[in-house]
């Protein structure tokens, strides 16, 4: 098992899949000659050549449309969206074309394409390059969506996504690209879509999280002596493993969702509604969502760190939940902002 950075793990997954399946092609802006702006496709051009690894013009609508057509006619394209915001100019091809292709062909055509996108705050890119936008995608039946939380997760989810016969969006938290971890490659390292990872055992509260918030949730869980938290990495947001989450929360009696996105209509809203309504009367406390405030991501280092949930804040929120049995106010209420 090699230790590698998450960006290297992405490249390893692409390379391993391309070696096994000659129909896998990779394209996007600066993914070939430069190896990707975040080095997530380093070495692929050299190994697989310019027919299968291509730099595109800056034209997301064009190359995502191209991915749809290529997928429908026999390739397995992996297209990179450098920053998730750039998907905004091409969303049609993902949510309205790719996601409906199988349905609109009476099940005859499939659209096995992968859209990779870097997401999230923490690196000082400002409010137009730091969002996560899961909610652009989580209301479009026909689409799958996974979120990487580290090197192994990025490797395993990517390989599943490429093999899946449906369009899959894989979100890669940009702040995690440089983080190292052990990676099991090959079939053993593949993580099926639609399954959670129970990353930590605990009895008092179930923390459900994804992406870059996994390490924050883990740090909070490890730091508390007052309560013991089970931590679940959701891994796949669509379809998410409802049964596994419900049964986990039923056991602990408390659900805390930690998300890196604004409060309103974050992905955790759906988890909260589903679990809260299913387990009404069984829970020991109301469902708590720990999120970012409803503001554009600020640029300054201190502000950006404040914007995202951190270990201390998550710990404090759970402390209050355990002590009072009520959902505590988020920090930004003290700054004059509404929930």
């Amino acid at each position, binding site marked *: 098992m090699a230790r590698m950075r998450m960006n290297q793990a992405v490249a390893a997954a692409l390379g391993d899949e391309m070696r096994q399946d000659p129909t896998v092609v990779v394209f996007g802006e600066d993914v070939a000659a430069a190896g990707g702006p975040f080095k997530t496709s380093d070495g692929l051009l050299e190994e697989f050549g310019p*027919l299968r690894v291509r730099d595109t013009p800056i034209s997301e609508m064009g190359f995502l*449309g191209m991915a749809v057509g290529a997928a429908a006619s*026999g390739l397995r394209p992996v297209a990179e969206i450098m920053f998730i915001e750039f998907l905004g100019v091409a969303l049609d091809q993902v949510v309205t074309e790719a996601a409906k292709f199988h349905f*609109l062909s009476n099940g005859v*055509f499939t659209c096995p394409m992968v859209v990779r996108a870097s997401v999230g705050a923490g690196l000082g890119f400002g409010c137009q390059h730091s969002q996560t936008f899961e909610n652009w995608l989580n209301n479009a039946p026909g689409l799958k969506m996974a979120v990487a939380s580290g090197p192994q997760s990025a490797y395993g989810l990517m390989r599943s996504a490429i093999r899946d016969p449906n369009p899959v969006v894989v979100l890669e938290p940009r702040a995690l690209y440089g983080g190292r971890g052990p990676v099991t490659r090959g079939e053993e390292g593949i993580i099926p879509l639609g399954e959670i990872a129970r990353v930590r055992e605990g009895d008092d509260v179930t923390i459900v999280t994804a992406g870059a918030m996994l390490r924050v949730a883990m740090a909070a869980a490890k730091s508390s002596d007052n309560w013991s938290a089970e931590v679940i990495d959701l891994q796949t947001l669509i379809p998410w493993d409802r049964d596994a989450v419900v049964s986990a929360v039923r056991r602990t009696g408390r659900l805390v969702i930690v998300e890196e996105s604004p409060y309103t209509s974050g992905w955790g809203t759906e988890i909260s509604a589903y679990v809260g309504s299913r387990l009404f009367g069984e829970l020991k406390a109301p469902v708590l969502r720990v999120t970012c405030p409803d503001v554009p991501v600020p640029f300054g280092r201190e502000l950006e760190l404040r914007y995202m949930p951190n270990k201390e804040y998550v710990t404090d929120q759970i402390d209050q939940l355990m002590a009072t049995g009520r959902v505590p106010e988020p920090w930004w209420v003290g700054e004059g902002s509404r929930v």
Partner: protein
Amino acid sequence: MGDRTKMERRLALAADRVARYERMVEIRAFEDRVQGLFAEGVVHGTTHTAQGQEAVAVGIAAVARPTDTVTCTYRGHGMGLALGMTPESILGEIMGREMGCIGGIAGSMHLVDKELGLLPTFAIIGAGIPVAAGAALTAQVKGTDDAAIGVFGDGASNIGAFHEGLNLAAIWKLPVVFVCENNQYGEYSRINLTTPIEDLADRAVSYGIPGIMVDGQDPDATVKAVSEALDRARSGEGPTLLEMKTYRYAGHSRADKAEYRPEGEFERWFQRDPINTFRARLESEGLLAEGQADEVDRQVAARIEAAMETVKASPPAGVDAMFRNIYAPV
């Protein structure tokens, strides 16, 4: 004649100009009948018919191989029929019946036939243009000599997907033919109100590819143009933009009576009606005997009526249909 398989219907157009005439008549009769159905309120929703544009669809279908990929728009009934789809499978979809090409869950704007090379038709303007380039990418990567044909309207030439799709196809020399059906109207707006140039073929210059104006009312001209562009694509020379000058006889959709049309415009175009013109040519060449065209027209009308009866008597899509095929099984 009515019992031919869809592949026989497709291949019939390859060498036989009389068959092309017959298919154009079929498209016209079909669209007239569909328009009537909506006007009578027999089916709900909307529809976009293609009377006047028959020579474009037939020109493409006559020379494209079934292994080539075609993307086309929500104004797709004519294209579907030309490619070989049966009137029943299209009408079934329009009327929401199980026997429709998508099982009746999609409606008039959505047609598909994989064996005939037709991807699910696109109800979003311009969306099919880069998708056609993607199908061409598959041919290039796999090293086949298949090609793709992206069909879209004049209105789509103003949307970003047009620019992005053509630019990508051009830099990678993809085997694709872009066919712009310039029917003079983008929805309710005349093309000159939305577009600062007269000839959309001129746009090809900015991609460094050939842009060719074609008489879209003449099936001999459309066949020749598509054939040459496909040859170019298959031989690795890259994409071509064909602008087919044609005319949309109906309004944009069911609700549109096209009252914005200048007086006399329709009449001027109708003087060059693609069916009448082609019929006269085939008669003068002796390919259609005296009275033979009338007989073709009668047979086609009877076939469409029979299809109508078959579809009307068939069951509508059941509730279970909407839960099918959302995800392909892993």
